[in-house]
């Protein structure tokens, strides 16, 4: 009965929240020796779930460490990257939230408010 797009957007909002938490953790550890920055992935799983006709994947978003070039202390946090990711995450969340409100608005309209 529930609109599949609402489930899709709910999953995306959950993934974006997990990413925000990971980014905050990364920034807090920008001076911790040997700390490897976390990157949250959920878009790929969501895209393949959508391709298979499902509204959301069964797996939760997951975090991956490393991949960036470490500094002299073995830390892979780059503040510019973290800030950029934070901005992008906030913008994506605003857009998905607007989409959520759009969908709810349509239902309210049909139901006569």
């Amino acid at each position, binding site marked *: 009965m529930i609109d599949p797009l609402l489930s899709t957007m709910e999953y995306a909002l959950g993934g974006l929240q997990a990413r925000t938490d990971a980014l905050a953790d990364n920034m807090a550890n920008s001076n911790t020796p040997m700390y490897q920055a976390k990157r949250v992935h959920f878009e790929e799983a969501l895209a393949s779930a959508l391709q298979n006709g499902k509204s959301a994947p069964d797996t939760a978003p997951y975090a991956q460490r490393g991949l960036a070039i470490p500094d002299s202390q073995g830390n892979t946090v*780059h503040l*510019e990257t973290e800030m*950029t990711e934070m*901005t992008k995450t906030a*913008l994506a969340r605003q*857009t998905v939230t607007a989409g959520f409100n759009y969908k709810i608005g349509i239902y309210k309209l049909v139901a006569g408010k």
Partner: protein
Amino acid sequence: MSGGPFSAIDIALTGMGFAKYWTETVSHNIANINTVSTFDNPFRARLIVARPIDPSSLTGGGVAVTQIAEQQGDPAPLYQPDSPLANADGYVAAPVVDLAGQMSDLILSSRMYQANISVHKSAREALESATTLGRS
């Protein structure tokens, strides 16, 4: 790399990353302005070479470091007979660093960083106003 809803922000990030790397390189070169060594292996300033990312795409994808070159030229001899690095005549090799050039690079790299911060901010503001599109 290019395309996607956040490409302007991502491109500005490559510019910031390049400028930071450049500043770090300049910092290294200036820090070694007194580093003498033997003539067969003098300290040479590192010069980074930029390369555009994805230049054939519609908007391009930003900038990256493609290689690090070394400043060429013969090292000036410095008379330091007590240095363990001195040759038979008592000379050591001065570092091959163009200090004036490094200082102007420092200004350029810091301006480049600031310019890319401005692009980042402007792109973010544009996208933020896009999220209010159609809302009264």
